[in-house]
Structure formats: C-alpha cells, structure tokens
C-alpha cells in the first residue's frame, strides 16, 4: 500500500460506503474500487475494514444484501441501500458539512 495512503478518518467509512453504493447495487470489491475511484486514490479500503463495516451496516438496517453474479460470471454478494440507509447518508452528510465548515473557520481564523 502506498505511503501516501491517508488513514480513513474515524466515522467517514460508513459515509463513503453509502455514497459508493449509490442508488444501485455493488459487491465488496466493487465498493472498494469505487471508493478508490471517487476519492481519486486517496482512500483505499481494505477488506479487513470493509467487510466488518458492511455487515455492521446491514445489521443496522441501512443495507440489504443478495447473492448475484459478478461481471466475471462469479457468484458475489451484492449490497443495496435501504430507505434507512439513504436517510443515514443524508444525516451523515450534514454532519460532515458541519465539521468541514467548522474546521475551515477554525483554520482560517486570525491567529493571535
């Protein structure tokens, strides 16, 4: 793994996963690659973090899963956002904006 790999900020993983799945459906590898893509390679989610998060979110009712066939004609477990998941994405997105805004204000503030 690259040296410049930024550690996933605590609490951002759920947000990234919900966003990466989008309106459609995706399997584990797909989600991992999609996150890499939409963050332009900044975040690489390893299976050791990805799968516990996926299972936890499914248990929380934000995702549902089903078995399907991948592009390579292999069996894969696909995840899809539930209504609760979409709501959760919205909530986390707002929370994230608040944090970003607050951090920006703090860092731009005049130093005394």
């Amino acid at each position, binding site marked *: 793994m690259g040296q410049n790999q930024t550690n996933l900020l605590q609490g951002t993983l759920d947000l990234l996963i919900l966003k990466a799945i989008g309106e459609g459906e995706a399997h*584990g590898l797909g989600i991992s690659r999609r996150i890499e893509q939409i963050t332009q390679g900044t975040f690489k989610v390893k299976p050791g973090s990805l799968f516990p998060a996926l299972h936890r979110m499914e248990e929380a009712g934000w995702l549902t899963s089903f078995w399907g066939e991948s592009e390579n004609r292999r069996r894969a477990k696909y995840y899809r956002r539930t209504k609760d998941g979409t709501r959760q994405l919205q909530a986390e997105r707002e929370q994230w904006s608040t944090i970003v805004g607050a951090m920006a204000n703090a860092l731009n503030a005049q130093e005394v």
Partner: protein
Amino acid sequence: MVLGSRLKAAVLNLLRKDRVEAELDAEIHAYVQGVADELIAAGVEPGEARRRACAEAGCVEPVKQAVRDHRAGTAFELLWRDGLFGMRQLRRNPALACTVIFTLALGIGANTTIFSVVWRPLRYEQANRLRMVWETRPDGSRSTVSSTTYHEWSDQNDIFESLAAARTESIALSGNPPILAFGASITPKFFDTFRLQPELGRFFSQDEFAPGKGTVAVLSYELWKTRFAGDRAILDKTVALDGMPYRVIGVAPPDFEFLGHEDIWLPMALPPGESGRQERNLLVVGRLKPGAGAAQAAEEMRVLAERVARQSPGTNRQWSARTQDFYEAMAGPGVHLMFLLLSVTVSVVMCMACANVANLLLARGTTRQKEIAIRIALGARRWRIMRQLLLESLLLSVLSGGLGLLLAFAAVRYLATLPVLQAPGLAPIEINRAVWHLSRFSASPQPCLPGSYLHGRPARSIRWNSSRPQAAARWAMGNMAACAAGW
C-alpha cells in the same frame, strides 16, 4: 430503529450460525478471486495473481475474524460459551462445587430465615410510639393497673397522645352451639391508640361508655368470619352475651389482638371511684405524643404515680409506675437482645461461609494457574480471563443463592407454624425484605472477586506457583477481609 434491527440480526446470526459462516466465507473468497481476476486481466500469471490478491486482502481468516468481532450477538455468544465452559468446570469438580454451593446456601438460608423471623415489625402504624404502662409494687415487680389509677393517669399525663386500657372477660356467646368467647372490655381511646379502622361498621362512641349504655359489641374479624360466615348484615343485629342482648356495631380488622386472640370487645363502664384501686386488672397501653421519648415517658409516669401514692396511701404507698417497650411486651422480655444476638450469630456464620468459600476458590485457582497462563500465552485478553472467572463465581453464587432461598422458604414455612414464635401484634412470619435479601444474594460473588482479580494479572499467574506460601496466605487474608466487607 437501529437497535431493533441489530437485535433481530443478533437472533438470526445465532440461530443460523452455519449459514452465516458459509456466506461469509464465500463472500471473502469472492473478493479475493475478484482481485485475482483483475490482476490476470492485467497480464499477471495466475499463480502470482492469486498470491498478490491474497496479500492485498490480508488473507481470508483475519478478515472473517474482523467481521465476527463486529457481528451482532457475538458478545452474547461468547458469554454463553464462557458460561457453558464454567458449567463444565463445575461438573468436572463436583465435590468442590457442592461444597461451595451448600456452604453458601446454608449461610444464605440461615440468614434469610433468621432475619425474616426476628425483625418482624409490629403491624400498627408508627408502632415505635406505643408503650405499655405498668404499676410497680413496693418490691419493684410490675403489676397490672387499677382502673381508678388508670383514669387518673389518663386525665393527668402530658406525654401520651392517648392512653388506653383493656381487661379480659370471659363471655358466654349464646347460639348453636353456645361458646365461651374470650373478650375484652376496653376504654374509649383503645382502638385510636392502635390507629385502627374498623373492617365493618364503627367502633364505640363516647356515650356508649356511660353506665347502662354499654350494651354494644365489636366482633373480631375471625369470629365474624367463622361464627357469622362473614355476613355483612351482622351490623345492628343482636347477639346474646352472658344471656344479655348486645347490639353488634362493628368488626375489627383481621388479625388484631392485644390480650391474645380476643373474640369480642365491649365498652368498659366509667371509673368506679376510690374502691377501684384495689382491683389491679387492667393492661394499659399508650401512644406517645410526637417527639416524646421513652425516658421522658418513664419519668413522667413515675412522677404521676408518686402523686397518686401520696393521695391514696392506703392502697398505693410505695407503688410506682414503669413503661415498657411495646414490642418487647408483645414478643417477650429481653427479646431485642436475643434478636440481636441471633442476628449477629447468623451474620458471623455467613462470614465464615464466605471465608471458607473464598479459600476453596483460591485453592482451586492455584491449580488452574497453568490453564490460565496458557490462555494468556495464546493471546486471551485480561478482560476475557477475568470475565470467565467472574462468570464461574456468579454461577456458584446464583446456584447457592437459589438453593439458600429454597431452604429459607422451607424453614420459614415451618417456623410460621410454631406457636412459640407467635405474638399478638407482630406481622406474620414470612420471608420479608425480599429485595434486601436479593441484594445480599447478588453480593455473594464478592468473596470470589479477589481470587478472580489475582488470576487476571498475567505476569503473576505465570510466575506465581505454590512455592510462595506466604503470598498465598496474604491473599487468603485479603480475601477474608474483602468478603467481610462485601458481605
């Protein structure tokens, strides 16, 4: 919402464990395979691709373990498995388990029984303000009170809210069959002193104590139920007592007795004058005014009695008065000290049981050092080991607590039938203060705690062995101190 969803997931995970595991395995393998497929498509040779995919995924087993660690219900499952392991440990060493369980059960049973029987409250409202009042003979022995003296006390004292008196009467109750009932004639404030409300009807009114008006009666609840079948129409009916017609005006509340199982109460006619000093046949009970103490009451009654003695030297020279704790009067002299001794005794027994059990567990702990050291060496966290040992302690204490309570129930049921333990006015014998005892029962794992703590320290559990007897002795002492404190 999330909680409910996770709860459901936890139940499903536990119920369909095999399927959940198989799916997890397939899912992770699919991921690795997917990575390998990408590499092959990029021109990497298949064997190398698989190796690199596995390296990227961090291999399958650790990932699966990471998922399991976060899975809903895992904590519960682990706890359950620890519990089963604890049960197996107990079964493997039945002699120890039985000794511990029976020792604690006997201790808990004895304590629950004794405390239930001994510290029974009086059933009257604010019963600690009730006091018996006696006349004392010139030699200091106590005597029942003459009716003239009672009336003077009642009128002149400033310490009792109400002072009441009762005298036993044998009354023939006509009917089929006729019975000789145990009755009491009482003074106006009698029922007020005990703060009683009638079960049915009313108690005596002031004018019913006037001469010639006293042909009214209050029945005991028990007599009403047995003799009159609990008939509510008994009020205003006439019963023949000693051949005279009496009108029933009320029924006393259940279980009320003062002289001992009275059936009928009648109004006592008003004072007979100076002649009444000779006949000392009244039991006198008073309710102290709020804030008045026992010592104050004793002093006041002594002063009053001295005044009476000066006024009527013929009958009362050198007679005095004394008050007595009502509970003691009902339950027997010296009862408080006896109860205290009993309570201390069973408490000491419980302490000894705890100390013995703590030492037994400590001794067993030393034989388990190796097992624990191995578990720690294999990577068990300190909390896991402590939890295991605590769970075993908890199992023992729950089993012994349950058995102890069963013993106590049996003992109390037996004791409740013993007439020697009955006393008028005392609450019935039953397991009371259940909550208090439950807290004791949940506190009983405490003696086992220091032992668990000891083995929770990895360095010690590896280094420590039976060649360090002084340290063991020190821990045993610590255990005993802790159990005494915890108990």
